[in-house]
């Protein structure tokens, strides 16, 4: 129990005909940053809602810091801070009032020092006495983060914290998430920006159609795809082996390379075959390539 922050066991959830979660098993370790990835509708938000008790699961069990989210919901919720995906706010209150009330719900009275600290960290001091209605989208997003932190939860879940956020705020949120993590918080984060997941996360879980289809350290996942992606635009006939090896993709042809040596082989084969190279692109394979490959493999089954 000591080395498990969140345990998710065989969790399933249906909405009518839709299977939102299909027997998901996942363990989150204390102190790690776990990226929860997956296409729209994969079940990321549903899984987070199940952890938070916003959604009742049909089967399975979830614990947060050892507390069952149904049976010991009070302790479980005290251990969890959730930043919801949707920008919700109460138009009756200012930023500071919002944070004070939220502290109150968690039984944290006289919490002003911590609230001040959070306001500073999230660069919200200037807006502390503004009504929530008057804040920009990015500002509201920061208040959502602040609200999730008022009770100093050991586990923090952020559901697309950087969606629709400008570059500067994204950078500062990344910095802040790393800081929280350094202070010992366990972090679970969903995002559609794979570079973000690659930069922040120790481990990555990928959901697809409610099933967990990959779970590994970010570096292991990247290793399965080490190398380069060559995209090449050709004119004329393509020499024999390469006509099949180069996969057509939107007029371009693609191939994954283990090393630059393979690139030389391809280029010389083209030269000898008299094939003209119109354009060429080489990218180091990244999490996006891993992600796409996993998605393709899964949809093939």
């Amino acid at each position, binding site marked *: 129990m000591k080395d498990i922050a969140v345990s998710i066991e065989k969790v399933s959830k249906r909405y009518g005909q839709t299977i939102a979660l299909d027997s998901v098993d996942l363990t989150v370790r204390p102190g790690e940053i776990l990226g929860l990835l997956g296409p729209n509708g994969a079940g990321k938000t549903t899984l987070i809602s199940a952890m938070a008790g916003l959604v009742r699961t049909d089967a399975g069990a979830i614990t947060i810091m050892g507390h069952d989210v149904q049976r010991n919901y*009070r302790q479980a919720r005290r251990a969890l801070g959730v930043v919801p995906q949707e920008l919700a706010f109460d138009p009756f209150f200012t930023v500071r009032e919002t944070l004070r009330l939220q502290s109150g719900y968690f039984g944290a009275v006289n919490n002003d020092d911590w609230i001040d600290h959070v306001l500073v960290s999230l660069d919200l001091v200037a807006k502390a006495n503004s009504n929530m209605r008057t804040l920009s989208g990015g500002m509201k997003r920061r208040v959502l983060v602040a609200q999730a932190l008022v009770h100093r939860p050991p586990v923090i879940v952020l559901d697309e914290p950087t969606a629709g956020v400008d570059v500067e705020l994204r950078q500062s949120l990344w910095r802040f998430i790393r800081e929280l993590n350094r202070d010992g918080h366990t972090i679970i984060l969903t995002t559609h920006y794979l570079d973000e997941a690659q930069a922040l996360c120790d481990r990555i879980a990928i959901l697809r159609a409610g099933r967990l289809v990959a779970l590994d350290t970010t570096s292991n996942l990247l290793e399965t795809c080490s190398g380069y992606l060559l995209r090449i635009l050709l004119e004329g006939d393509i020499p024999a082996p390469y006509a099949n090896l180069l996969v057509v993709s939107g007029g371009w042809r693609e191939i994954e390379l283990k090393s630059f040596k393979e690139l030389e082989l391809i280029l010389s084969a083209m030269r000898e075959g008299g094939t003209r190279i119109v354009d060429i692109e080489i990218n180091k394979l990244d999490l996006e390539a891993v992600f796409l490959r996993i998605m393709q493999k899964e949809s093939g089954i």
Partner: protein
Amino acid sequence: MIASGFIALCNKEVLRFAKVGFQTIAAPILTAVLYLLIFSHALEAKVRVLGIGYTAFLIPGLVMMAVLQNAFANSSSSIIQSKITGNIVFVLLSPLSHTEFFFAYVVAAIIRGICVGVGVFLATIWFANLSFESPWWILTFAVLGAAIMASLGLIAGIWAEKFDQLAALQNFLIMPLTFLSGVFYSIHSLPDFWQNLSRWNPVFYMIDGFRFGFFGVSDVSPWISLAASLGVLTVLVTATLNMLRRGYKLRA
């Protein structure tokens, strides 16, 4: 010790209506005063009810009607606004139990109802000579009635998915029940059929018991009204707590 989470939520609910006090307190007081002016002008010289001048008879009814309608309005509109804007999630994420949730909303709604009731009372008391036979009955029925309507409002707010559904409930259930409860008349002046029908209206007992506190006379014994009101309250509290425990329409 009362849980601080409950106090915070209750405090939020009170702040919510206090911040827009013009709409939530002043407006209903004005409406009640208008009723009083119109009806007492039309009927004071012609009508006596239960041996009491019409204006004096009317005032407690108007006060109680304001208490009931505003208690209902507070819990129902707060819940539905929070659901539609999505900010109910912040309460649902907290460790508050369903009982704390229930009492926070109900207590805040009672406070709103009583505030408006006191306002109506202070604004109308100058128009007639009121007696106060037994203030305890007045207080008991005010709180009891407000609690009943607050629970009903909570149920309505949780059930409704759109503002028009709530408005329909308000127009087709709450308004008829309060208007046909004997606020403006004694049910003894009604034909038998309507008199019997009124006895099925729970609001009738709340108003009748409340009025007994002022005049010491009423259509039925205040003990019967008390029993009827407590019965209705028990049913509603049980139903609401049950809905909240199951997360009906709040937790998917």
